[in-house]
């Protein structure tokens, strides 16, 4: 990430960046957004969230914009948006390849069946 060649984001990382695309959020809001968006499939623990937020801040993908009492608010940076879009493109390519492969496998199975029948 950053100036280095970007590695793929994990699911949790991807959803944290997704949460911040819409507006600035604090930790609790990010957790709630991710849980709602994934229908409870992805639940971010406080340790996981802290580690990801620290990592993203170090890599300049997000920045802390406000501290109000115990609440810290984060905002995604242009670099973070770029990282999110690259990951989205990668996932889209993976999905397209998988659908095409699945379709070819099905065609192959149908052809084999046709040979057997005739």
């Amino acid at each position, binding site marked *: 990430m950053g100036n280095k060649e970007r590695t793929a984001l994990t699911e949790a990382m991807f959803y944290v960046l997704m949460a911040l695309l819409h507006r600035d959020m604090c930790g609790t809001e990010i957790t709630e957004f991710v849980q709602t968006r994934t229908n409870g499939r992805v639940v971010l623990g*406080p340790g996981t969230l*802290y580690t990801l937020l620290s990592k993203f801040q170090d890599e300049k993908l997000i920045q802390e914009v406000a501290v109000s009492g115990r609440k810290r608010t984060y905002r995604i940076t242009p670099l973070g948006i770029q990282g999110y879009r690259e990951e989205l493109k990668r996932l889209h390519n993976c999905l397209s390849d998988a659908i095409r492969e699945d379709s070819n496998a099905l065609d192959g199975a149908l052809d084999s069946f046709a040979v057997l029948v005739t």
Partner: protein
Amino acid sequence: MTVPWTALPFWLPERQGDYTMAIKNMVRFPPVPTDDLEGMAGWLESMALQGLYFDGLFYSHYFLTTFLFREGPPAQVRYRIDPAKGTLYNDPPAGLVELYEESGWTYMGSTGRYSHIFMTKDSDLPEPYDQPEILGQALTPQVKNRKRGLFLASMLLIMDVFLFCSILHSALILHRPIWFQAVLIILLVLAITLSVQHLRMLYEQKQQFELGRPFTPHIPAHNKLRICALITLTFLYSLLDLWLILR
């Protein structure tokens, strides 16, 4: 960062009686290094089942650490140790305590720069690190710090052995007797041996988490050899310190 009494779980009774009298029965020596996340969690949970709750550090030195415990009703609780890098004064990093408390955990104190203790009575609360791989990544700064310390100690040992054996010894070590250098070398050898074991434990722990093994607290056995080594180290260090002060 001190934890005010009002922030502690409500079901723990208020401290009764004289504080110094309470210390006698409630100071404990941890059976594992504070970096052993699963061992520490298991040990603290077993103490809670006996009615003793972690109440802070009683004494902390590089080689010897003792914990203070407070009496309360025996209960099944969950302790978790977060290895996030804290301040030089061992306070947790900004934002960590808030995230944990918003999720239902209570901050109990820190036992080192990379060791922040949280507790909950809720057995259904999700793990702070729902993905063990991320916990493994979180251990990276700690492993690097230990490696750096081990390297510096090794360089110091090599230098001391050289000075002890070389003909330049009498010229360079004018203010230190021979026995001082000998004790220093023994101390460094012991410290490096313990550090290597400690680093190996930390590295194995990190690898296991990165492979996806879930966090599993276990009750550690007391390692008498380790305890003897730590007491010897502390004694030797104190001896050298005392000589430097009194000379």
